[in-house]
């Protein structure tokens, strides 16, 4: 069936408008996917291949696999199987994105405001996405702590957090932080502008924060040394939730994901990081990354960008769609991200654009939305490709996922189905019935007796 992408997206929106009931039956039994074109992403394209999902993992990949007793068997003849998409930059499923009141809000945690019932989770599953990196907004230089999440729609927050993932934090540079775009209006209303209002100030905020973090660490080291010496009267320093995560950054225990656009500001951050002895894990957006590709590669930093989204503000004017390809050719781990509930549903198309711009191979293009994202989040041993032993986060597509005519049909996470296009149809009927009965009950309601 030739289903245009737009139609597919529209259907998903319509359906998902109220879907709340979990789609899945658990626990995950074994599933054998037969005769698919398997896009492993790391080990080539395997035609007419079977994949066995068992105990939440990819158990076997090969030809003519036999199904274990009780396993569900799916005939995927003519269909494609690819790893679940990893979106390195998302603001889905949160009740708040920015705590922009201060220049440094490292104490705030996306984990605290996750909304596991957000309908956009379901919509993204329908676009083949299984893991998203939920970041704080870009209102301030040092933003909040991010959360890496598997889109297990219908489960609670704890079940959705990516187990064992390294924590991270959002930084932001450039115009969003200086508030240049909002300055006139802010001045008109008499509100004071928050420091800093220049890129110079941003560098100072970073350096100041990490110097305070060093001092804070020293106060604890001092305390621990006294305790070790047997001092029983010493009172522990007050815990500082702002500085604790920055100490973790200094100790290499927390990733930095930095919103940035211009080459000069990215270099500034890489220099500050070098000065304080940590590595920036990813530059987010990084539209001018191609200008400093070697420097980024040398710093061991990744970059996550848009496929072809630019010129929406001054710092985004110098973008080119070849950014991703140039970065990859310089050895930078580069990815394409959504930064959008809507774009997240069609990241496969954004990956396909990377073949048009810069001539990436099919596998390189797919990597920008799967394996490379897993590397950027430090979970490449768990997800991002179809390999035996990895998490069973896989998606059956109706055709080649790099075609606009294909759509995701079944999305597995840890071997469980969280989206299935046929179940989706059935749920639409269920929901229509529920709505009808609720509306009837709502109208039937007895009007309270007023004395």
């Amino acid at each position: 069936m030739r289903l245009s992408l737009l139609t597919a997206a529209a259907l998903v929106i319509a359906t998902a408008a109220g879907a709340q009931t979990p789609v899945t039956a658990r626990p995950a039994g074994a599933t054998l996917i037969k005769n698919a074109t398997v896009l492993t992403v790391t080990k080539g394209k395997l035609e007419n291949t079977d994949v066995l999902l068992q105990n939440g993992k990819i158990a076997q990949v090969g030809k003519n696999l036999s199904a274990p007793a009780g396993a569900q068997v799916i005939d995927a003849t003519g269909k494609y199987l690819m790893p679940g998409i990893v979106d390195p930059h998302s603001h889905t499923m949160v009740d708040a994105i920015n705590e922009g009141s201060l220049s440094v809000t490292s104490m705030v945690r996306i984990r605290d405001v996750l909304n596991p019932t957000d309908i956009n989770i379901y919509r993204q599953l329908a676009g083949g996405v299984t893991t998203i990196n939920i970041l704080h907004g870009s209102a301030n230089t040092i933003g909040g702590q991010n959360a890496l999440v598997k889109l297990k729609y219908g489960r609670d927050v704890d079940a959705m957090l990516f187990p064992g993932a390294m924590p991270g934090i959002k930084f932001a540079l450039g115009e969003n932080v200086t508030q240049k775009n909002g300055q006139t209006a802010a001045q008109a209303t008499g509100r004071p502008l928050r420091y800093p209002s220049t890129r110079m100030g941003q560098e100072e905020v970073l350096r100041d924060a990490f110097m305070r973090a060093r001092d804070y660490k020293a106060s604890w080291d001092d305390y621990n040394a006294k305790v070790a010496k047997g001092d029983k009267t010493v009172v522990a320093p007050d815990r500082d939730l702002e500085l604790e995560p920055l100490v973790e950054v200094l100790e290499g225990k927390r990733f930095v994901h930095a919103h940035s656009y211009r080459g000069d500001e990215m270099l500034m951050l890489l220099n500050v990081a070098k000065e304080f002895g940590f590595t920036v894990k990813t530059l987010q957006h990084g539209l001018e990354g191609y200008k400093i590709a070697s420097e980024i590669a040398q710093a061991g930093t990744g970059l996550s960008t848009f496929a072809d989204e630019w010129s929406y503000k001054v710092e985004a004017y110098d973008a080119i769609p070849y950014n991703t390809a140039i970065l990859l050719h310089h050895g930078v781990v580069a990815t394409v991200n959504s930064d959008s509930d809507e774009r997240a549903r069609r990241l496969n198309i954004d990956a396909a654009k990377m073949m048009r711009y810069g001539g990436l191979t099919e596998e390189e293009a797919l990597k920008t939305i799967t394996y490379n994202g897993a590397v950027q989040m430090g979970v490449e041993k768990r997800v991002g490709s179809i390999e035996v032993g990895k998490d069973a986060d896989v998606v059956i597509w109706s055709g080649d996922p790099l075609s606009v005519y294909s759509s995701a049909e079944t999305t597995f996470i840890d071997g469980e189905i969280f989206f299935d296009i046929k179940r989706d149809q059935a749920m639409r009927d269920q929901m229509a019935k529920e709505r009808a009965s609720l509306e009837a009950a709502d109208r039937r309601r007895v009007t309270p007796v007023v004395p």
Partner: protein
Amino acid sequence: MQIRRFLTGAMLAFAAGVVAPPLLGAQIGVQRERNVPNVYAITNARIVPVSGPAIERGTVVIRNGVIAAVGASAQAPADARIIDGTGLTVYPGLIDANSSLGYPAAAATQAGAPAGRGGRGAPAQQGAPAGAPNSLRPIGLQPEIAAIDLVHPDADAFSGPHSAGITTALTVPSSGIFKGLSAVITLGGASTQAMIIKAPVAEHIGFTPLRSGGYPNSLLGVFSALRQTLLDAQHYGAEQAAYAKNPRGARRPEIDPSLEALQPVLARQIPVVMEASQAREIERALDLAKEFNLRVVIAGGEEADQVAARLKAENVPVLISLNFPRRPTASADADPEPLRVLRARVEAPKLASKLTAAGVRFAFEDGGLTTWSDFLANAGRTVENGLTSEQAVRALTAAPAEILGVSDRLGTIETGKIANLTVTRGDLFAGRVAHVFVDGNPVEIRAQAAGSTAGAMANGTWTVTVTMDEGDKPVTMALEQFGDQLRGTIQGALGNSQISNGSIGADGAFRFTASVTMGGSTEEAAFTGTIAGNVIRGTVGVVGHPQGTFAGQRPDAAGQGAGRRGRPPVQR
């Protein structure tokens, strides 16, 4: 009729200045003990003592503010005023388990004053003073604000609650994040001090970001501010203890009234009442309580049934809001309501019976409702939806007394307990309150002023134009106010989403955020504005965009405040 005659006489005496009130605000229609008889007997009444089976025909004797006798064979003493209770039912005085009753109106105009949870009979009687004296922390983050210092009701403060049969309330002094230390008060008394039954009862946490725009202005910051304050309080306790033990040679630690106030909370001597309605909000509240080993009570609890197993396992009671969601007015071309919103409205009256089935303890609270007749009407709807009448009465009497730690003196009709009584014509849930006794004194019942929308000024469906750098965007905002919280949806040209981080003050100033779609990206838009009558306007901030504006109106004002009274508004 005997009761009415008696009351009229009493009120005339009051009005004629027989009782010269030194503190008019605290009189609240209750006669002063020394001037009126303080012995009453309600005879021939049906009595629902809650502590035991109903007595079909019996007498309750009140002496000096205390229940002196109760039963089928109890005799009216010779010195008692006799009230013929034929056709009447006597219940323990109803308890509103969470309210903002009893604060002076003047405070509402001061900076930072909350909308209060619920506009009361008089529009402006909510609010609290500008803040705690000598506090080191901003308004909204002052756990030391105490009801006992601030309760000072206006003359008409309790007429609404009295008309709903409410005699006793837990009252919370402030709004914001740390809302302060509550007190159980009787709704009326010779003086403010005489009204206090127990204080402090609990610390209250509201999770509402600060409207000032300062930190924290989002739910993200609310949690980190709570966490840091509690950590600071732990550290403060340790520092103070170390200094007390060995003051010589050590620098004296600074006194911080906020951290001082949290010591009994950390020591589990008093519970923390956390406002949480949706399942995820309840989970977050429970997580926070667990992190700091706090005794927690959930207030609001709209989706508590979805967390029932955990609430039961952790023995957490729920104060169920009787401010059920209202059906919004909708214009003909509006999108259909999200299924979740519809579901929440239909399911609200079923919550109490679901929690009963799950073994979760609960009591009823007003939830910031603005029309006091809704209080009993909505309690009645829980009975229509699976709760027994006995359970519903319990949730208004003995259950809140137990949860609030005053069951030794309130909550049932038993000899020796405080004589707070609610007397109705027929069944309680028919809502015909005939008579209320507060501390053994009869109180005149007056109907609530009609059309009061205080505390619900935002309710309704607003047609709004948002003007940003991308041009004019028509949207529909369906807003609902619960005390100082603002909830609802925004639909239209910016996409469809629930609003978050919403709060509103008594002056109509509000702030909320919503996820919007702009230029293909998902952005968080912060709406800051004011509501005046049927006009809404303000500014919109989106990171990376020039500040925008929005303005609109409420085409049909029928949805506000009294929306559930009378005929429900027609939908579509």
